């Protein structure tokens, strides 16, 4: 790898400089809306996951698409993760440049630029990717040969979510053979995401659904092995199914992401993990029956949220405002700050460029959100320049 850490250090310096006045301030005294990362809670979440994985042979791969933070990803590695999972090739580049050597893009990568970026990245890190189509295999092979690299490839299995992925061993087998025979590619195994289980809040039902999904995934892995195509990696799971999936025979790694930062949806699935990420907002208008905050769907996200305290009923979320019902007895006044617990954190994070990192009630650092959404083609330029 060239200049490990430089890309991340530059981004870190940029946000530290942009948010310099915030450093040292109390958690409640920031310019709002502000994205808050509670370091103590984050560490507790990472410890809890590490404890849960201690007695199993299954490995933890931390999915970074939720937090998009190279700093949090490094902490996850320090807490035992073998590598990271990414949704895009751009996330993979950032994480590799953060010094993480094992990056898996758990998604189909299509298009000349993205395929080329993946192949170039594979020259400096162990890169794996999911596929569900022979055309992807051929394109990846051409790009890897051109870049002189080797890309690890896993077959994406549709475990019941009906999005990407092959649905049967019959579909998987020719794909696996194609990968195994393709120059520049290595067949690594199978991957799936039982996302449909994370919509089921009843633990017993959810675990039954996850077990059924794992039976399908490990069954396909066994069929491939019978044909001489060994699956070194059998990867699955999210925060809603990490425990049952990590204990399912034949699964070699799990790929949860939300456990680190958490949100209302995932707390409904596994309340042992705490709120590490929140949005700080200010009361900008106080009416007799309500308070109006300066954080709405443009900062908290389309899934909205609730107040950490006091316990007020949501009246409405608008773009720049959220409105909570509050009678005269509620002590909130214009200028007060409150924290919003997001129902789904990835959306909130997508709207911010930096985390205010809190320890002992004060801002100790500012970390970049990186890469920021779709606007990341410059990372390919970076790889092509060899910088």
């Amino acid at each position, binding site marked *: 790898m060239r200049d490990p850490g430089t890309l991340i250090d530059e981004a870190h310096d940029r946000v530290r400089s942009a948010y310099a006045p915030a450093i040292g301030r109390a958690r409640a005294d920031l310019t709002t809306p502000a994205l808050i990362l509670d370091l103590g809670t984050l560490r507790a979440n990472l410890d809890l996951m590490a404890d849960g994985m201690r007695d199993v042979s299954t490995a933890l791969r931390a999915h970074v698409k939720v937090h998009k933070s190279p700093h949090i990803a490094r902490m996850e590695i320090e807490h035992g993760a073998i590598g990271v999972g990414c949704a895009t090739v751009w996330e993979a580049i950032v994480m590799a440049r953060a010094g993480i050597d094992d990056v898996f893009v758990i998604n189909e990568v299509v*298009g000349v630029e993205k395929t080329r970026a993946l192949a170039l990245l594979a020259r400096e890190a162990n890169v794996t990717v999911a596929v569900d189509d022979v055309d992807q295999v051929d394109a990846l092979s051409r790009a890897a040969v051109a870049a002189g690299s080797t890309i690890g490839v896993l077959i994406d299995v549709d475990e019941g979510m009906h999005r990407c992925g092959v649905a049967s061993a019959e579909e998987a087998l020719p794909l696996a053979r194609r990968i195994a025979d393709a120059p520049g590619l290595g067949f690594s195994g199978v991957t799936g995401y039982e996302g449909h289980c994370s919509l089921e809040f009843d633990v017993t039902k959810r675990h039954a659904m996850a077990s059924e999904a794992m039976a399908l995934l490990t069954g396909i892995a066994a069929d491939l092995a019978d044909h001489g195509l060994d699956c070194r990696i059998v990867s699955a799971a999210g925060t809603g199914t990490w425990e049952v999936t990590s204990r399912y025979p034949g699964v070699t790694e799990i790929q949860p992401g939300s456990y680190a930062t958490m949100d209302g949806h995932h707390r409904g699935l596994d309340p042992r993990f705490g709120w590490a990420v929140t949005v700080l907002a200010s009361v900008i208008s106080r009416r007799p029956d309500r308070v109006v905050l300066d954080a709405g769907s443009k900062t908290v996200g389309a899934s909205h949220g609730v107040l950490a305290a006091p316990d007020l009923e949501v009246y409405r979320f608008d773009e720049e405002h959220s409105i909570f019902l509050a009678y005269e007895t509620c002590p909130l006044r214009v200028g007060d700050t409150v924290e919003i617990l997001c129902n789904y954190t990835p959306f909130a994070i997508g709207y911010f460029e930096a985390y205010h990192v809190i320890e002992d009630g004060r801002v100790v650092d500012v970390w970049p959100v990186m890469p920021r959404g*779709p606007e990341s*083609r410059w990372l390919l330029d970076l790889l092509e320049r060899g910088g």
Partner: protein
Amino acid sequence: MGRTAVAPKLQPVTDVSTPALVVDLDVFEANVAAMAALVHGTGKTIRPHVKTHRTPELARRQLGSLAVGVTCATVGEAEAMVDAGIDDVLIANEVVDPRKIARLVALGDRARIGVAVDDPGPVVSLALEAARVGATIDVLIDVDILLHRCGVESAADAVALAQAIDRSPSLRLRGIMGYEGRRRRAEPDRAERVVEAYAILAGARAALQDAGFPVEVVSAAGTSTLSEALADPTITEIQAGVYALMEPELLDPDVPFRCATAIRGTVISRHSGRVVVDVGRRSVGVEYGPPVPMGFVAKDLWISDEHVTIEMDDPLPDLGSQLDFAPGQIRTTFNLHDRVWVSRAGRIVDRWPIARGSSQ
């Protein structure tokens, strides 16, 4: 979640890395011209709300003889617009943090700045800061016209606030503002609510005038209530914003605006009767509905963080081909991108920065 409506296809543009936000400048300019034509002759002006796109290059192209300034929702947006040379900005929102008030007042060096108020506390902070630096800030009293968000709830409160403003030589009371909210055609009591909202504005104006305060400006309305606002005798200034780019939900045979924005994705996975595109809720806003197919027919579609899964009939588009969607919610979509591609007559001609994340 089913949405199979077909929005008209934008002109095809050359290959871009996806997901990509593309604005068709021809359609945008036609929308801006259509708005000018509607406002012309009514005696009113338009102050385009630029929170819609947070894009200074688009904002500049919305100005004209009937549009001398822009409306913003945050101090951060106002800073981006003034930095781009726009010299007349209304922040149609309450600003209470002393640090933000200082930033707002500082903009007064370079632009005419107005702000909404609904509480005597921020009026005092604003007046002190403006006096400290020798600036004069325009103030509009925000009136709650049934949106139940910010705004004073009675004419008496408006008069009391006007008195507080009047005691501050560094503040200039320009009038009142209100926002009646997005009023959809299908709302059963839509007409009554709009009538009632504008009656509240008229009542507040009358009370202020009776108490001896000037009310030069009555600023209100959005794209969804444009026809009512243009016919209303009280309103002097329209704050609409969506009209320039439009959203599928607001398309109506009675309005001359068309969808000017596409979110473009690439087909990354194909299955029997189904394709998956690399557009998701982290690249397109969905508050007013999922993305709407442009120029192709979907039997059904559902959206997740990084994907749109589309059920469609054969022949399926090839792997790697690109599909366009009209975003359900323009404002949250723009706020997820750093820059917008600009096309004219089917060719990409430029790429403009978005003041993304300017929510502070």
